[in-house]
């Protein structure tokens, strides 16, 4: 009985020490960033969220762990650190991989349909709606003449009397 309690204590101490070592290692593994590096990092994050990883095409460059994505992030970081603008970084990539790397395709003749298509469809819908409304208005029956109106009123009055009775 006493012996097992002893081992338990030992185990607990061991686990505590291990955890302490792990935490220290983890802290040591993440070096503090200088303000410059933090700024580069923030821009890298912002840009790579706009870019597609070419290996796993539905992931952004920021999210992907593919080897190519790691390489590209490294190159982008280098370009940013060298003082290149965002558009220069993006053209570095489109030069090599085409517009497909961008999640937001540029507005140019080839992509006019892509950008304007939804609005064109919306316009078509509005035109068709207007057309249908117009036609229904025309199909509405013309107002009755005086004699017919009098007869209608008489019939309605009669009906009212019947239901009340």
């Amino acid at each position, binding site marked *: 009985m006493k012996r097992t309690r002893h081992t338990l204590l030992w185990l607990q101490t061991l686990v505590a020490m291990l955890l302490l070592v792990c935490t220290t290692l983890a802290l040591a593994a993440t070096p503090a960033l200088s303000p410059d590096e933090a700024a580069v990092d923030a821009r890298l994050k912002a840009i790579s969220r706009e870019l597609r990883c070419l290996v796993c*095409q539905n992931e952004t460059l920021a999210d992907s762990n593919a080897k190519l994505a790691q*390489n590209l992030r490294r*190159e982008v970081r280098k370009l940013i650190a060298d003082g290149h603008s965002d558009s220069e970084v993006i053209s570095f990539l489109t030069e090599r991989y*085409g517009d497909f790397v961008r999640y937001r395709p540029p507005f140019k003749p080839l992509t006019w349909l892509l950008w304007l298509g939804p609005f064109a469809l919306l316009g078509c819908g509005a035109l068709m709606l207007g*057309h249908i409304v117009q036609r229904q208005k025309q199909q509405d029956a013309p107002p009755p003449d005086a004699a017919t109106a009098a007869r209608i009123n008489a019939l309605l009055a009669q009906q009212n009397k019947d239901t009340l009775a």
Partner: protein
Amino acid sequence: MKKQWIWALPLAVFVVMVGFFAASLDKDPRELPSQRLDKPAPAFTLPLLENPQASFSPAQMHGQVWLLNVWASWCAACRSEHALIGQLAKQVPVVGLNQQDEAGAARAWLAELGNPYLATPTDDDGRVSIDYGVYGVPETFVIDKQGVIRYRHLGPVTEQSINDVLLPLIRKLQA
């Protein structure tokens, strides 16, 4: 009677969309057109796998048609295409760009499967591959006598792609 055609409009739109989708069915969405096509092959100087003191650069190939085959020992598809690359190497010089590999593993791989390459520059950090727009390994570039990229084959070459595309193009460029 009037404007009956308007009801055919949605049907027409539907037919056009079906046409688009049907045409895309056969296409591999992973296959992106190379941006480097018909442009000069990017220059580089990289150490050789067999002899890191020596180096290779595309300028050395000026005046001849050649292939740049991007490979790595960790790439399974490279193993499957290797025999075919060997066949191609009998017709045209092939340079093997060894991408992000361990030198020991890469040398062992060539010793095991045979070395068809005229030279094997090592792209340790993948920087040159990025310049060539490589996003999958293997990829094979056909480069003409003037050093212009004329074709890029994505993925492992097949007997069909060699006979139908690569060899006819190489012969045409060599003529």
